[in-house]
């Protein structure tokens, strides 16, 4: 049942877990949830907290919205700790409290070209974006990852896109990837806009190079959150114009020039 607790501009729903799909590795799982009634902008996120958690773990967990179709809402999860481990072993048909869509997503314009830079799990918000884009030929993606590519939703992205994936398993690979990012950012610079999402060390490299070239870019940050709605003040990031701001409501997507990483 789709049990909507409150219907204003946002919702807290108790949704059913339709199923789980492990992506070739026990630590990477796609959660398929009953689709909510709302629509979202890629880059926005939801908070998930299974009903069965009761009082422990205490926090919900934030996840980028990977994809939403009339049949399901899909969340891509990597097991990195206790919460994600419990989620990866959630039972189909169990109930999960979900609220969203939260935060500010990517500002997109259909006639613009985009260079998408994704690091690891940072690919999640781009899945729906790329698959639903009417002109995927306008999108290029450079995807860096540590685990085998089959762990990530890369191959399912539209074939019309220019896609490049690079695996990093050691420091040398990381440095090489950094140089590729630098080159590609410089080459693309003003042909459109750069969109990036990934772990902080990756974002710091992207941030450095987009500021050097002056290329317009939007970066999605990942932070630790307790509430997702602007109340706990745990998820702050430093910005140029406003100091510390909550990434859950003023982000997670920021203009690169606004962020201090």
């Amino acid at each position, binding site marked *: 049942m789709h049990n909507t*607790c*409150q219907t*204003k*501009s*946002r*919702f*807290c729903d108790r949704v059913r877990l339709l199923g789980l799909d492990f992506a070739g590795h026990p630590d990477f799982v796609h959660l398929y949830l009953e689709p909510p009634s709302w629509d979202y902008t890629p880059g926005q996120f939801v908070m998930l*907290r299974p009903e069965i958690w009761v*009082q*422990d*773990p*205490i*926090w*919900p967990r934030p996840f980028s919205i990977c994809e939403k179709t009339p049949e399901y809402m899909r969340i891509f999860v990597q097991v990195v700790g206790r*919460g994600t481990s419990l989620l990866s072993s959630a039972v189909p048909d169990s109930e999960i*409290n979900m*609220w969203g869509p939260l935060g500010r997503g990517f500002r997109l314009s259909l006639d613009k070209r985009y260079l998408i830079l994704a690091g690891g799990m940072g690919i999640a918000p781009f899945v729906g974006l790329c698959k639903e884009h009417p002109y995927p030929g306008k999108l290029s993606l450079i995807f860096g990852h540590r685990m085998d590519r089959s762990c990530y939703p890369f191959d399912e992205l539209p074939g019309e896109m220019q896609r490049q994936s690079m695996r990093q398993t050691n420091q040398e690979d990381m440095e090489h990837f950094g140089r590729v990012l630098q080159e590609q950012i410089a080459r693309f610079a003003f042909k459109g806009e750069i969109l990036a999402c990934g772990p902080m060390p990756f974002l710091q490299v992207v941030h450095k190079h987009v500021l050097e070239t002056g290329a317009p870019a939007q970066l999605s940050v990942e*932070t*630790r959150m*307790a*509430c*997702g*709605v*602007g*109340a*706990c*003040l*745990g*998820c*702050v*990031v430093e910005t140029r114009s406003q*100091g*510390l701001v909550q990434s859950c*409501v003023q982000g997670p997507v920021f203009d690169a020039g606004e962020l201090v990483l």
Partner: protein
Amino acid sequence: MNTSVDLGGLRLKNPIMSASGTFGYGLEFAPYGDLQKLGAIVVKGLSLQPRSGNPPPRITETPCGMLNAIGLQNVGVEKFLREKLPFLPADKTPVIANLYAQGAGEFAELAAILGDEPKVSALEINISCPNVRCGGVQFGQDPEAAAFVTRQVRRACPDKPLIIKLSPNVMDIRVIARSVQEAGADIISLINTLGGMAVDIHSRKPRLANTVGGLSGPAVKPVALKMVYEVCGVVDIPVIGLGGICSARDALEFIMVGAHAVQIGTANFMRPDLIFDLVDELPVLLAELGVESLEKFRGSLETA
């Protein structure tokens, strides 16, 4: 069932209030429920000037709870009055300002400003924040200092109910409670967070940038319940209980040991509409227990 309560001049339609620091300025939760349903809205701690708070990481999860060291980030009293308060349903649900200052003089100045504001129904004085260098808990750990701040605020704001929020990080909370009552407090709220710490053996670093923080959530509930029980035994003024309350049953436990009302804190993070559900669940649970009124249930704990 009528669950209204009278907290010495502060009338609430039900005993469920938000706890400061877990409910933003109230407006953050408006998309998830009707703010007018709540007994009262206690907003994030306000200071005279805006504060940016401590560097991140500021929060970390612990078993059945969490640690925070936010450092009282807030927009400052001026911006609160201009940009937040006008949008709260203050005519339908009391809005309670929570005050933080670095000295008794500053507390008085802040109390005078908020005391003049008709849309603020009461003041809650935070003499118990563990995450700031000056002020905060240093007032809350010494009965003389706690009484001094209470008197200063009382003088600066004679007309509004005054709530003093106590720290559990003390030798004997009853001493502090009696002291602030004698100094003119109308209401006491307790507990603020318990001092706590979490570390990472791999990085050998603390999990909070501030090294130490305040523990909250269900993990602290037994401690809070004991302290509320103790304080209710030694003061004549109404007590607001808080500390790990997540359900109507938890709320009734605090009321049964003597609290007039309760605040919901960390549980607001578990689900943004949880507090609104509690308001509905409380009278249902009272009816299930066969209780005639909240008044009769309060302090009904039977000890051998």
